[in-house]
């Protein structure tokens, strides 16, 4: 083939990959990232609650727990999942510990958020310099990790929790007898 004919290859050579690339973006939430933590021990941490009391992962050991990374600026996702978390705490608080961790947020804003949307009573923890978020590999709130009684991460939710997803994830960390 002559160069004059071959030059027509330029068009598909440029158009097809670009289209394919841009098309790949559809149907994926750019914020969803799979966690390598699942099946592994949850990172250890120590911090203080918004009320100023020291708390650490050791204090939660021996019971399943849920770690919810959130921020008052995360709209509307954190507002949407807020009642789901509160309901789960209400229903399973006797068997599962729930903690919220502020992701890049100030206590001032977090307090205001809780005053407005309701405070279910479980503790919210400060994450100074984002150390805990980094250990958990949090990209952006809300992200929620479900840790079983042995301290192993069993499930992770990226984005707002819905009642059904909450039940499914909870099932992975509750002891069989109590399900």
């Amino acid at each position, binding site marked *: 083939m002559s160069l*004059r004919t071959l*030059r*027509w290859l*330029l*068009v598909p050579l*440029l*158009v097809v990959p*670009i*289209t*394919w*690339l*841009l*098309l*790949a*973006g*559809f149907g*994926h939430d*750019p*914020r*969803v*990232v*799979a966690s390598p933590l699942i099946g592994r021990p949850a990172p250890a941490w120590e911090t203080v609650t918004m009320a100023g009391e020291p708390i650490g992962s050791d204090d939660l050991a021996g019971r399943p727990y849920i770690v919810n990374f959130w921020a*008052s*600026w995360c*709209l509307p996702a954190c*507002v949407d999942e807020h009642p789901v978390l509160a309901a789960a705490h209400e229903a399973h608080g006797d068997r599962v510990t729930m903690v919220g961790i502020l992701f890049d947020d*100030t*206590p*001032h*804003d977090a307090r*205001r*958020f809780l005053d*407005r*949307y309701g405070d279910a009573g479980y503790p919210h923890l400060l994450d100074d310099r984002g150390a805990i978020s980094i250990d958990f590999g949090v990209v*952006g709130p809300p992200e929620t990790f479900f840790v079983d009684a042995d301290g192993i991460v069993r499930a992770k939710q990226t984005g707002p929790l819905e009642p059904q997803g909450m039940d499914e994830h909870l099932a992975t960390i509750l002891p069989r007898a109590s399900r």
Partner: protein
Amino acid sequence: MIPTIGHASILVGLALSAYAVVAHLLAARGGDPRIASSGRRAVIGSFVAAGIACAAMVLSLLSHDFSVVYVAENNATSTPPFISAISLWAALEGSILFWTLLATGWAGLVLHRYRDRHRALMPWVGATLAAINGFFFMVMTWPGNPFARTDPVAAEGLGPNALLQNHPFMALHPPLLYLGYTGLAVAFAFGIAALATRRLDEEWLRIVRRWTIIPWIFLTLGIVAGAWWSYEVLGWGGYWAWDPVENAALLPWLTATAFLHSIMVAERRGGLRIWTGAMVIATFVLTLVGTFLTRSGVVASVHSFTQSAIGPWFLAAIVVALAGSLTLLVWRLPELAGGGRPSGTVSRESAFLLNNVLFLGLTFAVLFGTLLPLIMLAVGGEQISVGAPWFDTVTVPIFIALLFLMGVGPALPWGTAGWTTLRQRFSLPLVVAAAVTAGATIAGLREIGPLGTLGLAVFVGSIMVDEVVRGARARARGRGEHPATATWRLTTRNRRRYGGYSVHVGVLVMAVGVAVSSGLATDRTVTIGPGETAGIGAYEITNDRLVVEPLAADPRVIETRAELTYAGPQAGTLATALRDYPNSPTAIATPAVRTSLGEDLYVTLLASDASSGVVTLHLFVNPLVVWIWIGGGIVGIGAGFAAWPERRTRPAVQPVPDSAPRPAAVETVEGA
């Protein structure tokens, strides 16, 4: 009623655009000349329709008509009129409506202005522009209807985005940026017309240069205004974060800038015509890609435009524009190839060529970094994105090389440069730059980045000053003019060259501002009680008192305000606040910025305790930041100076390949 008129106008605009495409295509095939003018009137009519639709939206916002979804989501009964009006471009659907107004406006202006000229080109220009406008009307008719209604009607709306209420710059930054984006479609339309009619000649180059530089000015000012807004409003002390939305504005700017340089070679020496055509196409396609990336939700961005149904529409538009224009370009390739005059390795042509390679390198780097999440997704790999440090590492060396070239390139002669010329041109600037760098080192500047940038900027700046001075002196001597008169005449007789120099000076000023402010900024977080003092740099900040009260302008907004006294190189009082807007659970920071020519004192309130009056503050001292904005202004003025029509005092002079840049040489006579 008013929203119905708005919606009807969009439908009318769509119909007029469709008609205009057909009419212009018929005219291009040699139809009745009257059909071209009816097509032109249809485009102007679509501008009027877009204007009516915009007016209807603004009226709906001002009257708080919550039956319109857009108004209910972006307005509240207590929203001040000014904020209501500029909410036209505060969210997705409204911004597309505003965008359409500007796009149809440019199209109408161009078709009207050239109604009696360029008879072969204009039908194709009209058809292309009308097709682009039609696309935007289609988006507003189907996936992104700005006048979508809701029933039942809410008594109160959600209110505008709190961030947008906080600074008047929101009234300035989007219109400037959109004027740039939409204007670049004109250059693209001329590109298509020239390819279709096989007229990529000097006439075409002149028109396209003009219609690239005008939107380029708006795009530049829009980008600088956006950076400034981010600095003044967001409270993080910075102005550029390599966010996808910022990159989306930067990408077409880079290719447009490359084009503005390569076109000089095309005009002076022939050649580079394929390249020039490709740049015009790339610039327009990149404006679409940028819009697609940021408005469709495929890339995560802090600007977080909501996921919307317009994504597939924009993707289709990109594919059509890219495939269509590439096909045309490839079709014409044999006719475009060659034609350039040969030149030496060290010459102005090679400097321009290198300039274009560097700009293209920057474009690819920024595009790659922005698209990396999509690339990884497409090849099925792990999800990865790159942040500001990656962009800095990759782009800074290219920017530095461009800075160097900016001084050396214009000082090199066309053709071939000999050693004598090089020594003549560069020895004095080198000495000056070395002296200034040494002086700055002695004065205490030790960081390599700011120091190197300063030295380079002085080197480049003195090359240009040297040339202007020599040219003006020669003119003053030769014609017996006063030196000031000679300088003015020299520069106004060759606006392109000296306007371009002024743009370069603005860029140098910005470069020094960026290098110094990013390399030498200091910041610290302090918590101080009432009456206590904390220091940063040469400043002492005292916590006078903490006030919590409703905002006078809008009592629903509660302001927590730290009133502070500062002493040091600047002294006085300032107040920095957190504002709690009813529709935002997050308090919006209002940083206090005290600007001086040497440095900015930048204070934000992070947290406070109302009972004790203790405040936590983030303090920054950012040196030379103001020079970034000043530099941006110089760039705008310089580009305006260059784009200003030159007086037609003599007939067009054929470009003469000269061996040295003659300051008083006539490079072109503007005919556009």
